[in-house]
C-alpha cells in the first residue's frame, strides 16, 4: 500500500516532466534542430561540468527553502501562496541591514541580516495567519494578493526613500562586503547553499521525528481528529504559516547576501523564487527528498537555458516553454489536491451525494 503510494507520487512528478520534454522536443524538431543534442547540451552543461553544476547548486539554494516553506503548509492542508512576498520583504530588509548597518564583523553582520529577514517574513505572514485562524478567511486568497501589495510597497521604497542615488537604475545601495558570502574558489557557489541544505535537513528532521511533524500530518489529513486528540489546531495553523514565512524571509536574506547584493526590481528573477518554490514543492510531492531533486532539476533547467542559447541556434525561450508546460500539468495536480477536481469529474451519477444517511 505504502510503496504503491510512493510509486504513484514519483510517477505524478516524473510524468509531467517527461511530457513537457516531449512536447519541447517536437518544437525543437519543428525548428529543424536535433532535440537529443539540445537536451544533451542543456543538462550536460548544467549538471555534468564543474562550473555548470556549481551554478546549478547555487541557484538551487533559495529554491530548496522556498520549496520547503510551501511544502510544510501544503502538508497541513494550508496554502501559503505568499512565499514570494515574504521572500521579497525578507531580502529587502536584509539588504537594508547589509547596506546601512556597518557592523564590520562578517559573521555577526550576516546573522543580523538573516534574523531581520526571517523576522519580517514572520511579521508579514502574521496577517494571513491571524485572519485564517480567527476569522476563517481563506489564507490562499489573502497570501496570494498580499504578494502584489508587497511588490508595490517595495517598488516605492526602493525607488524612493532607499534608492541608491548614484545608480542609473532603481536599486538600493549595495550591501557591505562584510554581509556578502564569499564564493568557493572560482565558482559561484557560496556557504549559503550549505546553510540552506542544513536548514532543510533540520526541517526534515522536525517533520519526521517530532511532534511538530505529527501535528502537520494530522491537521492536514483530519483536522477534527486532531482537535479530538488535543492538538491545538488553531495555534498550530498560526505557527505553521509563521514558520513558513520565516523560512521564506530567510531565503530572501540568503539570496540577497549570496547573489544579488542589492534590491532591484528583478530581485527574485523573472518567474520569482517564491513561485518557483511552489513548482518545486509540487514537483517533489512535498516530500523532502523530492524537493531536493526537483529544486536541482529546476535550477538545472534554468541554468541550461543560457547554454542552449550559447551552443545551439535554438532560442532559449524553449526552456520557458518547457517550464510553462510543466506548470500547466502541475496546476492540474494542484487543483486536484485542493478541490478534488478529478474526483468530481469522475463521480458517477449513482454515487453523487454519497451515502446521504
Amino acid at each position, binding site marked *: 500500500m505504502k510503496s504503491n503510494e510512493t510509486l504513484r507520487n514519483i510517477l505524478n512528478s516524473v510524468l509531467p516532466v517527461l511530457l513537457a520534454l516531449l512536447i519541447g522536443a517536437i518544437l525543437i524538431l519543428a525548428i529543424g534542430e536535433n532535440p537529443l543534442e539540445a537536451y544533451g547540451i542543456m543538462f550536460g552543461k548544467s549538471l555534468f561540468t564543474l562550473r555548470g553544476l556549481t551554478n546549478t547548486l547555487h541557484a538551487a539554494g533559495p529554491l530548496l527553502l522556498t520549496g520547503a516553506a510551501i511544502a510544510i503548509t501544503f502538508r497541513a492542508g494550508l496554502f501559503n501562496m505568499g512565499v514570494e512576498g515574504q521572500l521579497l520583504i525578507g531580502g529587502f530588509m536584509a539588504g537594508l541591514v547589509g547596506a546601512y548597518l556597518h557592523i564590520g564583523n562578517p559573521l555577526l553582520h550576516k546573522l543580523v541580516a538573516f534574523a531581520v529577514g526571517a523576522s519580517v517574513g514572520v511579521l508579514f505572514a502574521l496577517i494571513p495567519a491571524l485572519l485564517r485562524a480567527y476569522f476563517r478567511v481563506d489564507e490562499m486568497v489573502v497570501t496570494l494578493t498580499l504578494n502584489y501589495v508587497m511588490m508595490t510597497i517595495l517598488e516605492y521604497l526602493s525607488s524612493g526613500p532607499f534608492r541608491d542615488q548614484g545608480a542609473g537604475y532603481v536599486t538600493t545601495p549595495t550591501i557591505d562586503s562584510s554581509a556578502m558570502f564569499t564564493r568557493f574558489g572560482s565558482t559561484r557557489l557560496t556557504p549559503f547553499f550549505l546553510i540552506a541544505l542544513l536548514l532543510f535537513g533540520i526541517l526534515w528532521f522536525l517533520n519526521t521525528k517530532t511532534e511538530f511533524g505529527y501535528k502537520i500530518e494530522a491537521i492536514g489529513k*483530519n483536522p477534527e481528529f486532531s482537535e*479530538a486528540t*488535543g492538538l491545538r489546531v488553531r495555534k498550530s495553523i498560526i505557527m505553521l504559516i509563521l514558520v513558513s514565512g520565516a523560512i521564506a524571509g530567510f531565503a530572501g536574506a540568503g539570496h540577497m547576501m549570496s547573489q544579488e547584493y542589492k534590491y532591484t526590481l528583478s530581485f527574485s528573477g523573472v518567474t520569482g523564487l517564491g513561485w518557483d518554490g511552489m513548482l518545486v514543492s509540487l514537483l517533489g510531492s512535498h516530500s523532502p527528498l523530492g524537493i531536493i531533486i526537483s529544486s536541482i532539476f529546476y535550477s538545472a533547467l534554468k541554468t541550461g537555458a543560457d547554454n542552449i542559447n550559447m551552443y545551439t541556434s535554438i532560442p532559449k525561450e524553449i526552456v520557458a516553454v518547457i517550464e510553462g508546460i510543466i506548470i500547466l500539468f502541475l496546476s492540474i495536480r494542484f487543483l486536484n489536491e485542493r478541490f478534488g477536481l478529478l474526483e468530481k469529474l469522475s463521480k458517477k451519477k449513482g454515487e453523487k451525494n454519497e451515502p446521504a444517511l
Partner: protein
Amino acid sequence: MGTILQTKDLTKKFGDFTANDKINLTVEEGEIKAIVGENGAGKSTLMNMLYRQLEPTSGEIYLRGQPIEFNSPRDAIQHGIGMVHQHFMLVPSFKVYENILLGTELAHDKLRFLVDHKKEQQECAELIKRYGFDLDVNEVVENLSVGQQQKIEILKMLYRNVDILILDEPTSVLTPQEVDELLLQLKELKAQGKTIILITHKLREVMQVSDSVTVIKKGQIIGNVKTSETNEAELAQMMVGRKVLLTVQNDHIGQESPEVIYTVNDLTTNNTYGNIVVDHVSFEIKKGEIYGIAGVEGNGQSELVKLLSGMMEATGGTVHYKGEEITNLWADELRKLGIAIIPEDRYAQGLCKEMSLSANSIAGSTTSDAFKKNGIFDFKRIRQHCQELIDHYQIRIAEFDGNVSQLSGGNAQKLIIAREMNRQPDLLIASQPTRGVDIGAIEFIHQQILDFRNSGGAVLLISSELSEVMSLSDRIGVMYKGKILGEVDPLETSETEIGLLMAGTIPQEAVVYEK
C-alpha cells in the same frame, strides 16, 4: 383518494453496505406521512431514491399505480414530486421572486430574450397569497431568516405544481416559533390537496401534524402506524429498537464504593446557531459504576460528549474529576489526568484513516514523554507499543505499516479502545461504542467496559441503542431537549417508563432531576 406513491422491495447498496433493504412504503393521496428513524437509519437515502437523486440498486417505485421511468430530479418535479432539502439551494444575492423562478424565468412578451420582472413578481405574489405564506417577493434572500428561506424552497416546488412534497428534516434548522409556523403551513397545504412526506426524528412534530408514521431502523421498515393510534413513547421505542444484543454477563457488582469520582454540574452550551443544546446537565459517577445516558438521538447527547471530551466549550456549569475542576480542558489534558475517551464518530474523531496504525496508536499522547527520547519520537518504542495493543486486544490487521483505512469497523473501534484503555484510566467516556460494528466486536467491547467497571473504573456510557444502555448501566439518565429529564435504575425500570422519558414526559415514579 387512494395510494399515490408506492415502493416495492426498494433496495440501495453502497458497496457492501445496505442503506435501504427491501423497503415497501405506501403513501396515501392527501395525507401527511411522517418517516422517522435515527440518524443513519436510511431515511434520506430512501427519499433521494424517490426524488431520483440516487439510483436504486433494485426494486420499483410506483406513482399512481404506474412504475416510474424518470431518472432525474427535474423529471421527478415534472411528474409532481418535489423535495425540500435540509440545506437550501438559494442564491443569496437574488430577490425572493428571482429565486422562486430560477431556471423557469418568464420571458418578456415582445423581447423574448429579456426577463419580464414585472410578470414574475406578480405571479409570485399570487402564489404566495394562494398558499397563505407571509413573504415579500422583492426582499433579497440573504436578508431573510432561515425559516423564511425555507418558505422560498417550498414555494419553488409549489410553483412547479408538485402534488407530493418531500421535506427532509425541515425543522432541524428552525426556532421553535418557526417550527410551529411551518407545521401550520403543512396542514394548510394538505387542506389544499397536497401530499406531504415529512422526514424527521422529532416525535413531537410527528404527533402534531402527521396522519401516518413509518419507522425505519437500519435500512428496514420497523413499523407502519396511524398517528392517531400511537404515542411518542411507542414511537421512541420503535426507533431505538428492543432487540437485546447483549450476550455478556452483567452482574451489576461494583456498587460498593461510594466515592464520587466525576461530577458534572449545571453544564450548559449553545450550538453555532445560538440555540441551547445542553441545558443545565448535572450528574455524578461513582467509582465502579456505569452511568448510562439514553435518549432519542439529537437531544444533546453528541454535544454533551463533545463538552466532556474537550471538543466543545461550555458556556456555563462545571465538571470536576477527583476533586479537581476540569471544565473546558483540552482533550490531551483530560487524557493525562486519566480519562479515556471513545468518541462518537470513530473515523472523524477517533482515528485518522490516512495515518499509520502506529501513529494512531499514540494519538492523544503525543505531548507526553512516554514515546519520546530527548523530545524526539522513539519509533522503535512506538511500534512496539502498537504491536502490544494489536496482540493484547486481538486486532485483526492486514499490514502493520499500512494505514488505519485497512481495518474493518470493529477492528478500528478496537484500536481506539486499546489505545484508550492501555493508559490505565480511572474514567471512561464511551460514546456509541458499538455503532456499526459486528456482533463479535460488540461482545468484546461490552466485556471491556464491564471488566473496567468491575476493577473499580467509572464509566459514562452514551448510546442510542437502548438495550445497550439498559443492560450495561448501573444508573441511567434520560436526555430530552438538552436536559437530563429523569434518572432511572435499569433493574427496576421498564421500557415504557424510559420510553416516556425519552419522549419528554415525566412519569410519576421516576426520579425527577430538575433544578
